[in-house]
C-alpha cells in the first residue's frame, strides 16, 4: 500500500480542465439550499467530477472526540474503521489539513480499489470532518493533480454549506487520540 499527500497540479492544458471543474464545484457548493442540498451537491461533485460512487462523511464529535459517520453513499459504513484506514500518519495529515491519498488493492474480492482519498473538511484552520472517497469508478484509474485542487476546494469551502453555522462553533484542538 502506498500513500501520499496532496501535490501541485499539472501543466496548462490540464489547468483548463481544472478551472471548469473548480468553477462548477465552487458554484454548486455556494448555491446549495440547506444541508440536504449541500450533501447532494457533495455527492454530485464526487461522482461527476472525481469519479467515485462510494463515499462517506465523518464528522468530529467534540464531546467524545471521535469521528462519527455523518452520511454515506454507495457503501455501508457502520463497520468501517476510519482510523485504521487512515493510519497514524494519515490521520495526522488530515488533522493538519492535508489530503491523504492511499493507493491500495483492498476492497471487494476480485476488484481493485486503486485509490482512496481522505479529504479534511476545515473551518478556521481546524479539521471538523473527513470526506472519505473509497472506490473509484472502473474507468477512473487514479487521482491526478487536478483532483488534488478539487480536494483543496472541498476542504476549504464545503463546511459552511454542509454544517451551516454549527461548523464555525465546531472548533477543536484535538481529535480522537490525535496529537497534531
Amino acid at each position, binding site marked *: 500500500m502506498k500513500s501520499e499527500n496532496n501535490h501541485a497540479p499539472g501543466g496548462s492544458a490540464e489547468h483548463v*480542465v481544472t478551472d471548469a471543474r473548480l468553477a462548477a464545484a465552487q458554484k454548486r457548493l455556494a448555491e446549495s439550499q440547506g444541508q440536504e442540498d449541500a450533501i447532494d451537491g457533495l455527492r454530485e*461533485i464526487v461522482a461527476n467530477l472525481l469519479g467515485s460512487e462510494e463515499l462517506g462523511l465523518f464528522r468530529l464529535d467534540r464531546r467524545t472526540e471521535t469521528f462519527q459517520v455523518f452520511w454515506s453513499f454507495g457503501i455501508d459504513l457502520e463497520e468501517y474503521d476510519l482510523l485504521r484506514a487512515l493510519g497514524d500518519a494519515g490521520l495526522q495529515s488530515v488533522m493538519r489539513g492535508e489530503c491523504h491519498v492511499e493507493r491500495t488493492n483492498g476492497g471487494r474480492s476480485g476488484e481493485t480499489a486503486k485509490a482512496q482519498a481522505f479529504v479534511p473538511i476545515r473551518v478556521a484552520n481546524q479539521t471538523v470532518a473527513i470526506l472519505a472517497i473509497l472506490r473509484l*469508478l472502473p474507468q477512473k484509474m487514479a487521482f491526478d493533480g487536478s483532483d488534488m485542487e478539487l480536494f483543496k476546494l472541498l476542504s476549504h469551502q464545503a463546511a459552511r454549506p454542509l454544517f451551516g453555522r454549527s461548523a464555525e462553533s465546531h472548533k477543536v484542538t484535538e481529535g480522537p487520540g490525535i496529537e497534531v
Partner: protein
Amino acid sequence: MSKKILVVDDSKTALMMEREILERRTPYQCVTASDGREAVEKALQEHPDLVLMDVVMPNMNGFEACKMMRQQAGTREIPIVLVTTRGEESYMEAGFQSGCNDYITKPIDSAELVAMLQSYLGE
C-alpha cells in the same frame, strides 16, 4: 449563428461543469434540461445541433429519451452523445440500440468532450 447543444442531466453539478466547458472552450450555445422528458420537449422546441445527455435520470432516462427522439421527425437526425458513469460494453451496447451516436464516460475529460463535439459540429 453559433451551433446549439442541449445538455441534459439531473445533476446540477454535471450541468454546471458541462456548461463551464462549453462556455470556456467552444463557440457553441448551451441550453439545458434536467431529465429525459424535458429533453425531448426542449429538443423539439430548440432544435439543437447536438444532444449531450446523461443516462440515469428521473422521469425518463437517457435511453428512453434517445429512443423517443429517434421516433420523432423533428429530432430524428440530431446527433446524441450519451454520458454515463458506467463504461461496460453491455451498457454501451444498450445505448447504441437506443439510437445514440456516441458516448462519453464520467468523470468527463474536457479535452475528450471538446474533441468529440468538434467531430460532430466542427470548430
